[in-house]
Every structure is written in structure tokens, then in C-alpha cells.
């Protein structure tokens, strides 16, 4: 970002003392060699050499040093090279004409050369401005956040004009805020608000020093003002570069507007996705809840109508299983509702993972359906901080899934590993693995749609929500050795000390 305006620095230096000094030096540089070669040079050629020096001074050092050089050249020529030497007196009156013409030519060419140099320099400066602006515009076009827009604009104005700038954007209540905290010069937003509401620039004397002003430029777009650009810099510079600042403001405005519409588009898309989800939820819920309910009604009727007491027991057993399946579904629905309502406060306590694993297995009981579960935990597993009730749901749901989809009586492995500041807990089964291409961690997505397995596709979504609330991650994988593996992580902390017994 730096060196965008190198010429500016050069032109400032040119107007200072070094310019005059160099002009004197240039005259001396001509005078010395010419003095040595004087016997072999015609006076007309000596004049030419001095004119060349004046011309070069004008070209590179500007008008004023060129004038100095012009007068100095005439004086030096007179003093050293015109009879009598080492005196300003002139014997041959012809030389008066030579001096006049020499001075006139030096001044005129100096003028022209200086203007030429200045124009070239201005062209270079304009070009570097344009290039810097172009680079900024390109960065703004690629910006994906207003913070990035603010940063790009700030850096440009800082590097270019030495100005401090900040971007003030309205919030949902149309109140202006600095994009980056603590960046705004004033905490009083009445001036930027005026610029924002009226859509015209507002200028105030700066608070930070003499000759410094703060300029509020509205970010105008065809529809409305999108915010305010606050620039604080030296007054003269701000006025001189006003056109540039307007360009910067309008570039920033376009970028902010583009981001605004991108945000609008994303919100619409999310609303549509939510709508689609609602439809699929209703469809799947009505199917998945009605199925066990239908079975319950039918089974109860069977009990009523069936006169053979021998089959009563079997029917009652089926009735119970259906009711328990329905219970699990309702539990999951309630859990997800609670979790997604955001009203869940984690009751985190330091405890061993072993305990919650054992409780989950115990609670599942017959739902494990004869699958033997092996628990393999490292002996040096420290206490972890988690909400036991919720983590029991996670382990329970993962085990339940494994039991549902793996072949009958196949073993299930629950194991944990310590890894880089966290614990990885996996549930592995020998089933067919997770179906590919499905967002199984999303609510109401089921691996086997409308399968004979009861469920509503909430188990994994609940696990994900709970694990993430604990600062962990849940991943599903089908390891190369076969089966399915659900793995979640929990962060390790620093557990409190145990009150050990006095020996």
C-alpha cells in the first residue's frame, strides 16, 4: 500500500532549498571545466553550455531554480569568460547584447522546460492515483464483509493522504456505528448523522490538531445513503484531493450496497430453506408419528376383539413396544425443541466419562436388542466437564443407532482416546455404515427414509447440537475396515483436585 504517491514526495522536496542549491551546483559544474577549456572554446559555445545547464535545471528542478540558474549563468559568463576576466566590467559593448539574449533565452526555455517537467510529473502522479484507486476498487469488489471494506478504505486513505478514516454504517435501527470499534474520531454521531440523512458532505474543524479537519462524506448510492465515510486529515490536502475522496466514497458506497444486497439474497435463501425444512418436517412427522399411533389403536382393538387369551400376551407386548418407540420419538422431539429454542443452560460438572457411558447403556436396556457393548476407555482419562444428562443422550442416541442398523447381535464398541487437548469418543458398529450423500446431522434427515425402523431422524441432530454446545464436534465416518463410526470430541480442561483422604 505504501509508495503509491512517490512523486508527491519528490515534488515537495523540489520546491525547497535543495532545488536552489542544485541550481548553483549546476552552474558551477559548467563553469569549472569550461574555465579549463576556455582557450579552445568560442564564447558562443560557452553560452550554449550554460543554456544547456539552465534547461536541465528547469526540467528537473522547476521554474524558480531555473531562474536562479539563468541569472547566475549570465553573471558567471560575464565574470570568468568576458574581457576583462574576474570583473563584471565589459569592454566590448557587443557582449551586452549577448548577455540580454542569453538571459532571455535561459528564462524562456527554463519556463517551458519547467512546465514540461511539471506536466510529466503530474501525469505520473495521476497515473499512480489511478492505479491506486483501481487497486482499491478491485479489493472492494472482492470484499466479503463490511469490515473488509472499511479496512481497504482506511488503508488507502492512510497510505495516500496520511489521513485517518473510518466507515460508519447504520444498524437495523438506522443508527450509525463505526465498523471497527474505537475507530471513530468523535463519539457524538450528530455530524455524521447529518451527512447521512441529508446525503451531503459535512466538514468540521478537527479535534486532533491545528489545520486538521474532519470530513463526513455520505456513501451515496442510487437508492439511498448507505453510511458515512469519516476522514480526518490536513485541511489543505483534503480540499486539494476532494475529487479523489468523492471517488473513494462512491467506491465504498458501491461495495457496501453490494454486500447489503448479497445479505438480502442470503436471507431470502435461508427463509426458503427453512420453509422447505418445515414442509419436510411436517411430512415426515405426520408419517412417523402416525405409524406407531395407528399400531397402538389397532393393537388395543385386537385386545378388545380377540377372545383367545393365549394371544393377549403377545398383543400386549407389541402394544408396549410401540408405546416405548413413540416415547423415544417424543423425547427426541422435545429435546430438539429445547435445544434449538436456545433455552438450554448446560449444567456442566466435572465427572468421569465412564459413569455416563455406563448409565447410557443401562438406560437403553432392551433397546440394545442383544448387541453386546464393549466400553474401552484409557485408564488415564481425566475428569471432563459436561452436562451429564445431555451427554447421556448423545451416547444413548449413538448406541441406539448402532443397535438399530447393525446386524442382530453384532458387537458395538464405545471407546475414547486422548488427542491434542481433547478427548475423542467413538461408537463403532459392524453394520452397513452411514449412507453417503445425506446430511444425517441435519434434523429430520433419515438414512433410510420411511424404513421399517421407527424414528424421525432427530437422534444425530440432537447429538450434534449437544456436542457443539460443549465445544466439541461430531463426525460420521465409514472406516475402511467396515461398519459405521460416529465420533465426537470434548475439550479437555483442568479438572479440580480431588479431596483425597488423609492416610
Amino acid at each position, binding site marked *: 500500500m505504501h509508495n503509491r504517491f512517490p512523486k508527491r514526495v519528490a515534488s515537495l522536496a523540489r520546491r525547497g532549498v535543495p532545488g536552489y542549491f542544485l541550481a548553483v551546483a549546476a552552474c558551477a559544474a559548467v563553469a569549472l571545466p569550461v574555465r579549463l577549456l576556455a582557450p579552445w572554446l568560442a564564447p558562443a559555445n560557452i553560452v550554449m553550455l550554460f543554456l544547456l545547464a539552465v534547461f536541465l535545471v528547469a526540467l528537473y528542478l522547476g521554474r524558480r531554480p531555473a531562474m536562479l540558474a539563468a541569472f547566475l549563468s549570465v553573471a558567471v559568463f560575464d565574470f570568468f569568460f568576458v574581457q576583462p576576466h574576474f570583473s563584471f566590467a565589459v569592454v566590448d559593448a557587443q557582449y551586452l547584447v549577448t548577455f540580454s539574449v542569453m538571459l532571455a533565452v535561459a528564462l524562456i526555455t527554463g519556463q517551458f522546460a519547467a512546465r514540461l517537467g511539471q506536466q510529466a510529473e503530474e501525469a505520473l502522479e495521476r497515473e499512480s492515483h489511478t492505479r491506486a484507486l483501481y487497486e482499491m476498487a478491485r479489493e472492494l469488489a472482492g470484499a466479503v464483509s463490511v469490515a473488509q471494506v472499511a479496512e481497504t478504505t482506511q488503508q488507502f486513505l492512510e497510505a495516500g493522504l496520511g489521513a485517518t478514516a473510518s466507515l460508519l454504517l447504520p444498524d437495523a435501527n438506522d443508527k450509525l456505528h463505526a465498523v471497527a470499534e474505537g475507530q471513530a474520531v468523535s463519539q457524538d454521531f450528530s455530524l455524521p448523522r447529518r451527512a447521512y440523512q441529508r446525503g451531503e458532505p459535512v466538514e468540521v474543524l478537527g479535534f486532533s490538531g491545528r489545520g486538521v479537519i474532519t470530513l463526513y462524506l455520505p456513501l451515496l448510492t442510487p437508492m439511498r445513503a448507505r453510511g458515512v465515510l469519516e476522514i480526518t486529515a490536513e485541511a489543505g490536502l483534503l480540499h486539494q484531493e476532494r475529487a479523489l475522496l468523492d471517488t473513494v466514497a462512491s467506491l465504498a458506497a458501491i461495495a457496501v450496497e453490494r454486500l447489503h444486497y448479497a445479505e438480502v439474497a442470503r436471507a431470502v435463501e435461508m427463509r426458503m430453506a427453512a420453509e422447505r425444512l418445515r414442509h419436510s418436517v411436517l411430512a415426515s412427522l405426520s408419517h412417523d408419528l402416525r405409524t406407531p399411533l395407528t399400531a397402538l389403536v389397532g393393537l388395543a382393538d385386537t385386545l378388545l376383539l380377540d377372545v383367545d387369551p393365549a394371544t393377549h400376551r403377545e398383543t400386549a407386548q407389541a402394544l408396549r413396544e410401540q408405546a416405548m418407540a413413540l416415547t423415544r420419538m417424543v423425547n427426541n422431539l422435545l429435546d430438539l425443541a429445547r435445544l434449538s429454542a436456545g433455552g438450554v443452560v448446560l449444567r456442566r460438572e466435572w465427572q468421569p466419562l*465412564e459413569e455416563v457411558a455406563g*448409565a447410557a447403556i443401562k438406560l437403553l436396556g432392551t433397546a440394545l436388542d442383544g448387541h453386546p457393548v464393549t466400553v474401552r476407555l484409557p485408564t488415564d482419562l481425566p475428569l471432563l466437564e459436561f452436562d451429564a*444428562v445431555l451427554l447421556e443422550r448423545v451416547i444413548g442416541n449413538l448406541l441406539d443407532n448402532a443397535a438399530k442398523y447393525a446386524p442382530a447381535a453384532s458387537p458395538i464398541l464405545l471407546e475414547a482416546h486422548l488427542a491434542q487437548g481433547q478427548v475423542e469418543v467413538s461408537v463403532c458398529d459392524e453394520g452397513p455404515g452411514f449412507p453417503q450423500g445425506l446430511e444425517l446431522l441435519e434434523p429430520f434427515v433419515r438414512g433410510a427414509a420411511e424404513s421399517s425402523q421407527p424414528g424421525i431422524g432427530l437422534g444425530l441432530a440432537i447429538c450434534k447440537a449437544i456436542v457443539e454446545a460443549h465445544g466439541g464436534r461430531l463426525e460420521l465416518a465409514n472406516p475402511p475396515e467396515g461398519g459405521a463410526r460416529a465420533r465426537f470430541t470434548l475439550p479437555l480442561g483442568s*479438572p479440580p483436585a480431588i479431596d483425597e483422604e488423609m492416610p
Partner: protein
Amino acid sequence: MSRVLIVEDEPQIRRFVRLALHGEGCEVTETGTLREGLALAGDTRPDLVILDLGLPDGDGLDFIRAWRAWSEAPLLVLSARGLEADKVAALDAGADDYLSKPFGVAELLARARALLRRRGAGEGAARPLREFGRVAVDLARREVRVDGQAVHLTPIEYRLLTLFLSHPGRVLTHRQLLREVWGPGHGNSGHTLRVYVGRLRHLLEQDPTQPQHVLTEIGVGYRFESEAAPT
């Protein structure tokens, strides 16, 4: 014959609880409100109260406190899953055990029997020898054997074990256990309790990751079962 009082506002639940207890030979009184429940409790002096925590006319905790003011008879609380804090509050207020809705008749009867038996036998009856699973405890000699081999328990481990042994089939909250074993002032040492229970399991259970006797009641406390549940 044991007298049981059911305080539950849902008639269908009352119905099947009543039928189940009748089958056990209990004499059952029932009501749907807290006020009537307290009146009936005074009149019938039941041996066991089964109380739903979510009653329409008041807080079940008030019932427990009022009941505990004059009776030592056991009290079983019915509560929905997910309301662990309510269960802990009920247990700390003096309830003896809880059942999560929905529950089956088998679970209900197991809990009711355990509570009534405790009353019949009297807690901490003078039986110095206790056995569960592969563990034998001689309370008189303070000896613990696993598969016939003597096992060394630290004083706290032993106190924890005897506490479990004297409350078979009953849930003990974290707070109750901390108070009984460590004494008052250890309210925040839940993690210490959990570590000691884990050690006890590693000493006594066949598979400490899937305990059969010292069971975890998630979010509430622990329950000791002297007989392994069939899985």
C-alpha cells in the same frame, strides 16, 4: 396388608397404578389433588405414598415437606424425564425414590416393593453379613471380600459402601451422599464423590464400565441394587 396412597391427577395413570398394587395385595386410596391428598394421608396413615410432582393445585414439594413433618413412611415420586432438578429437590426434601414417566408396571412394583420391604424389615437390620454379586461384606468385622479374596477399602470407600448397603434399591442424591460420607460443607465436591464411586466400582463390579450394583441415576445420584438386573 400395606396401605398405599396415590396422589396423581391423571385418571388413567391412577387406574393402572391402582390395578398393579391391588395385584400385589395392597389397599389403595387415591386422589387427584394435593389438598385432598394431605387430608387422606392424615386419615388413612398409608405405608407408602405415590406422588405426582405436577399436580394442578400446588407444588408436590409442599406435600413432601408437610408429610415428612409427621411421618417416616416412604414416599415415591413420579416425574417426567428431563426434570432432573425437580427430582433432586423432591429427594432432598424427603422423598425416598422416583420413577420417570413413562414407566412400566414392573418398574413401579419393584420400587414399591423395595420401599415397603425397607419399612417391614427396618433399615440397617442386624444382619452383619451382606452379599451382592461376587461381593461379601462383613459389617461386624469391617471386611470386604470379592470372589472370596479380601479387598482393602479406604475408610471413605467403606463408608460409601455401607451407606449403599443400608439403602438397597433406593436412590441417594449427590448431596445426601456427600453429607453422609464427607460431612457437611462438601456441597461442591460432586467430582470427588464421582471419583470415589468410580473407585468402588473398579474394586467391586465385574465390569466397572457397565455396573450392575452401584448404578448411576444421571443428574440425580446413585442407586444400589443388591441383585443384578437381568439385561
